[in-house]
């Protein structure tokens, strides 16, 4: 496994500080449920960043990584659905809980494609929601134009999640070293776009 460099640590530290800022600031005019969901998402980003700084890339070997990395898109998309499509909240909450449980079970009980399909499906749906909802609402004028940045973050989270899943499955699209080289930068960029997008909201 590639050793974590000073540059990687710096990028992750900035990412953690941005996530911490978002947690402290909260998101204006947001309901309690959505705020809790966003806090969980940024909280996982913050703690994951700190653990990567402390323990290095070796922690990515843990089978828990895929499970924990699913929490970020699921809780972010849940927050967005709760805020902007409140009628869909119960259905999406059910999907999020069932999807998460399915990932937990398949991660420990199944291997190969059977383990990848639930992760790719849940990541895909959650990622699409984070990508599309802010962009559509910005175009429709329901939210300020800057909110579309959250959508760009959604695209990045989808890329990150899939890279991580394929890395864990042993069949990476890119080499392990390349994935790990871009990973801290990708996390920082993703967090920054979320923070910019939510600030514009």
């Amino acid at each position: 496994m590639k050793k974590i460099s000073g540059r990687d640590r710096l990028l992750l530290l900035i990412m953690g500080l941005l996530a911490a800022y978002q947690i402290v600031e909260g998101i204006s005019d947001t309901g309690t449920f959505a705020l809790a969901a966003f806090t969980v998402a940024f909280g996982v980003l913050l703690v994951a960043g700190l653990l990567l700084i402390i323990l290095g890339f070796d922690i990515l070997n843990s089978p828990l990584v895929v499970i924990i990395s699913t929490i970020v898109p699921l809780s972010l998309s849940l927050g967005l659905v709760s805020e902007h499509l409140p009628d869909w909240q119960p259905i999406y909450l059910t999907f999020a809980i069932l999807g998460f449980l399915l990932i937990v079970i398949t991660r420990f009980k199944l291997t190969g494609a059977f383990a990848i399909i639930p992760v790719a499906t849940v990541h895909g749906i959650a990622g699409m929601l984070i990508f599309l909802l802010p962009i559509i609402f910005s175009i429709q004028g329901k939210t300020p134009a800057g909110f579309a940045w959250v959508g760009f973050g959604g695209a990045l989270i989808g890329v990150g999640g899939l890279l991580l899943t394929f890395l864990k499955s042993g069949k990476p699209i890119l080499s392990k070293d390349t994935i790990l080289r871009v990973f801290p930068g990708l996390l920082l960029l993703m967090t920054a776009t979320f923070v910019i997008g939510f600030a514009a909201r």
Partner: protein
Amino acid sequence: MNKIKTKFRLYWPLIKYSQTSLLMITGLAGYMTARCPVTHLSTMLGLFLSLFLTISGSTILNMWYDRDIDAKMPRTSKRPLPAGLVTPQEVLRLGLIVSLIGTAIAVAMDPLYGLIIFGGLFIDVVLYTIWLKRKTAWSIIWGGISGGMPILAGRALGIGAVDWIGIALMFAILFWIPTHILTFSMRYREDYKLAGVPTFPSTYGDFFTRNTIAISSVLGAIVIGIAAYGIGTSWGFLRLMGVLSGGLLALAIASVIKPSETVNFGLFKYASLYMFSAMILLMF
């Protein structure tokens, strides 16, 4: 000038600057829980100086007393005293002078503050290091109480009394200290065995030690959360503290369910970072 520089280079490792810095931050945080924004720079300077000198002084005195066991442990054998770079008499003199000046400044600033600072010094040097450290693994409780004195003292200086928040903050540090000491005693178990110092791993085994680390880390996070609430910390900071506590809890559970050197050391590092972050958050 060169002589002073040489002496400074020899004396600097005697104060364990990273540990001293962290304890000083707890003292400053304790004060700032009551007095933020800080308007009395002279008090702040006095607080800074008295904490630096008394914490450094007690560490120097510990180094002086523990020089024989430090010499037996590979991890500490290169420290200035066991390495023969400074004499025991010189270190004892330095420790006493630094401690006395620090305590004198503390007493002059506020008698209650001075009393707590002196209590911390006494508990650390006399009760923990001289009396109990070589007798029982439970000596770490006294080490923890002395470690909690700077934050209690800082808070007492800020409000002019000892209140439940100050006591809670002291307990938070008390619960954090085992994470630090016990992780070290697991990582360097052979060193402690060589020196004949009783530790939790050698007395009760790894399972009990890991559980103690996990439980004390979680208790520390709970107590500091309660204290932060009592101080009136804003919801945003409380949310952040809750998130960081969640990370600590996850690592604590992992260290018990799936123990490994990496997880245990990760918990130790994270707990230190957690404590540092919590202190910063308490200041505002």
